[in-house]
């Protein structure tokens, strides 16, 4: 899957694109089970580019099929053949780890619209790498903080047995101050959680924290709701996002989840984004769409100041992050990861559609735990 798309053509559907001066390579997941996330990032990104009205930005989009080797191959193609200036788009941490270090070492700028593995925030940070979404632990840390605020003192926590899952539990425990009623690692891709739910029921916990991205979360929530266990649940936004909420249905109603973005964050940029996204694509934007949108706007703001060919000036412009984020205040920390508010949201139903509403701020101006390990 390969699309050559000039911003002008996307905006006005005009023919003949003008001579592109900036080339952006987007590697994202557009096929297979994880395609929903990549589609949202792509659509959010392209929406911002189109709204900018600039016709000198060329976006090359390719599908990584959620396979690291394909992603690396595409990255090689973009750097060696297309000679892109800036890369973006990767959804998954393992793909980011495969692509980003080599790419930034070859002088390309990389703006991450989603994945934020700890290595890239800590010892593996790089001056050309900017994360516009979050460091992977952030939302979990916020969940821990929110649990304290709510008064939970005995949490049962579970996540899949893989690095991001281990980071999630670590992140939660970093901020959560209560006791643990239980700690479980499930299988990656597991679809049946009856055994875990039985353990939760038997544990005497007063709250459940889980990180189960994608289909795993859908399965867990449906089964949990059906089990009759009434212990309140808290989790990061990934399982409550616009894309999958409709598949979870009633089972998610009332669940509190943490996110750096929500469609009801009250600022003009966000309102305009939500409205234009829905108008353009006929669906509500998701967390990922907002991240794609913000990534593009960050890029556009830097391009106002400098060309990527002038690497030092361009980098400074990125670091300044002079753009209107859908999240309101946005700044980069010393390791080029966001310092931002993280909200607690609650799942509600608006007519036929399930969505989220902010119920509070879990962490204010939150930075990540790895910045100290970054020597940039």
């Amino acid at each position, binding site marked *: *899957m*390969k699309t050559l798309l000039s911003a002008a053509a996307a905006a006005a559907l005009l023919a003949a694109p003008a001579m592109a001066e900036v080339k952006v390579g987007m590697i994202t997941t*557009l*096929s297979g089970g994880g395609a929903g996330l990549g589609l949202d990032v792509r659509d959010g990104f392209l929406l911002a580019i189109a709204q900018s009205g600039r016709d000198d930005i060329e976006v090359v989009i390719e*599908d990584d099929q959620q*396979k*690291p*080797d394909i992603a*690396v*191959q595409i990255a*090689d*193609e973009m750097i*060696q*053949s297309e000679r892109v200036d800036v890369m973006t788009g990767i959804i998954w*941490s*393992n793909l980011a*780890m*495969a692509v980003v*270090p*080599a790419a930034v*070492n070859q002088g390309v700028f990389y703006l991450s619209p989603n994945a934020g*593995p700890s290595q890239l925030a800590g010892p593996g940070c790089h001056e050309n790498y900017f994360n516009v979404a979050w460091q992977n632990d952030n939302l979990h840390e916020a969940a821990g903080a929110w649990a304290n605020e709510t008064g939970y003192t005995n949490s049962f926590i579970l996540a899949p*047995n*893989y*690095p*991001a899952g*281990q980071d999630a539990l670590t992140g939660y425990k970093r901020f959560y101050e209560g006791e643990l009623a239980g700690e479980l690692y499930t*299988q*990656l891709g597991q679809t049946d959680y009856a055994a875990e739910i039985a353990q939760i029921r038997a544990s005497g916990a007063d709250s459940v924290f889980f990180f189960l991205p994608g289909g795993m979360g859908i399965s867990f929530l449906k089964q949990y709701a059906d089990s009759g266990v009434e212990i309140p649940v808290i989790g990061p936004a990934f399982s409550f996002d616009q894309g999958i909420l409709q598949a979870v249905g009633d089972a998610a109603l009332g669940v509190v989840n943490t996110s750096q973005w929500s469609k009801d964050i009250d600022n003009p940029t966000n309102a305009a984004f939500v409205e234009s996204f829905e108008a353009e694509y006929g669906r509500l934007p998701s967390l990922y769409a907002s991240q794609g949108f913000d990534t593009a706007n960050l890029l556009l703001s830097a391009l106002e100041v400098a060309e990527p060919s002038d690497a030092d000036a361009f980098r400074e412009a990125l670091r300044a992050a002079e753009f209107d984020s859908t999240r309101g205040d946005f700044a980069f920390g010393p390791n080029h990861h966001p310092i931002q508010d993280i909200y607690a949201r609650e799942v509600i139903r608006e007519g036929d559609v399930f969505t989220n509403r902010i119920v509070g701020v879990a962490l204010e101006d939150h930075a990540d735990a790895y910045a100290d390990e970054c020597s940039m």
Partner: protein
Amino acid sequence: MIPERWLTFAVLVGLLAVALGALVMDRPFTITLATRATILALAAVGLNIALGQGGLVSFGHAAFFGIGGYAMGILAHHAQTFTPLELGPLTITGTKSMPVIWLTAVVASALAALLIGLLALRTSGVYFIMITLAFGQMFFYFAISWSAYGGEDGLSIYVRNDFPGLNTLDPIQFFGLCFTLLCLVLLFAGRLMRSPFGLALNAARQAPERVETVGLDPMRLRLLAFVLSGAVTGLAGALFADLNRFVSPAMFSWQLSGELIVLVILGGVARLIGPVVGAIAFVTLEHVLGDVTEFWLIWLGVALLLVVLFARGGIVGLVARRGHG
């Protein structure tokens, strides 16, 4: 129909020409694609020793591919982080030297093939297919939860490993290295096919009782074939990891085992050059169809069905007659 030997020669020259052509036209990515095809071909040539000559339908060859990959990943990871690798009483420093990595990959995957083979070869037919699949899955889940080496995230190696006298980061030089290895392994596999061992192995596939009654043990023939096959696929795994500068449990996935079988059949089973043709066709399809449609896998599926149903000999079977001697 042309003789098989000519086809083998033509395909290899063609592959080399594509890479050199891309060099002249300054299209380094085409060289990368050619390298990818070369490495996948090598893995499939390995599988073909077990599958084509031994008749062993291994649905778990990704295990060896992954072991080769992780041999590279682990050694290079320790070298790039300057941490020694503790193996019980033994302490090894990591290495970025390709020959050492290759040797490790070959030995490790051969050992794994020996163990798997000893157990799996007790079964036959569908059971063999399934038990090899089960072993592949075991490695897959193990790799996912092995957090010391990145688990699901895998391991990133920042700079390609070294080969004495070459700049391996230069696409054409790395291609040359892989291509040379492919040619050497093809030469070996070709000799093997007609050697006393190959003759006995092929007979063991067609008429195992006969082989027994002339006093040869088909099990031992198959076991050795399985080990050789695993070793070659392991070598390919190490190269694949170096091509991507990255290893992950995806190298152990059952889909990859399936794709390796696809390469062999697409090209032509038990034909020396078959897997190479299959790999070139696969990479080309992937790239060309992938540009045309998001749903290119549908068309790959259709192409595969047509080959299975109507072109039993694969692509090679369509164009070349089987050579003897």
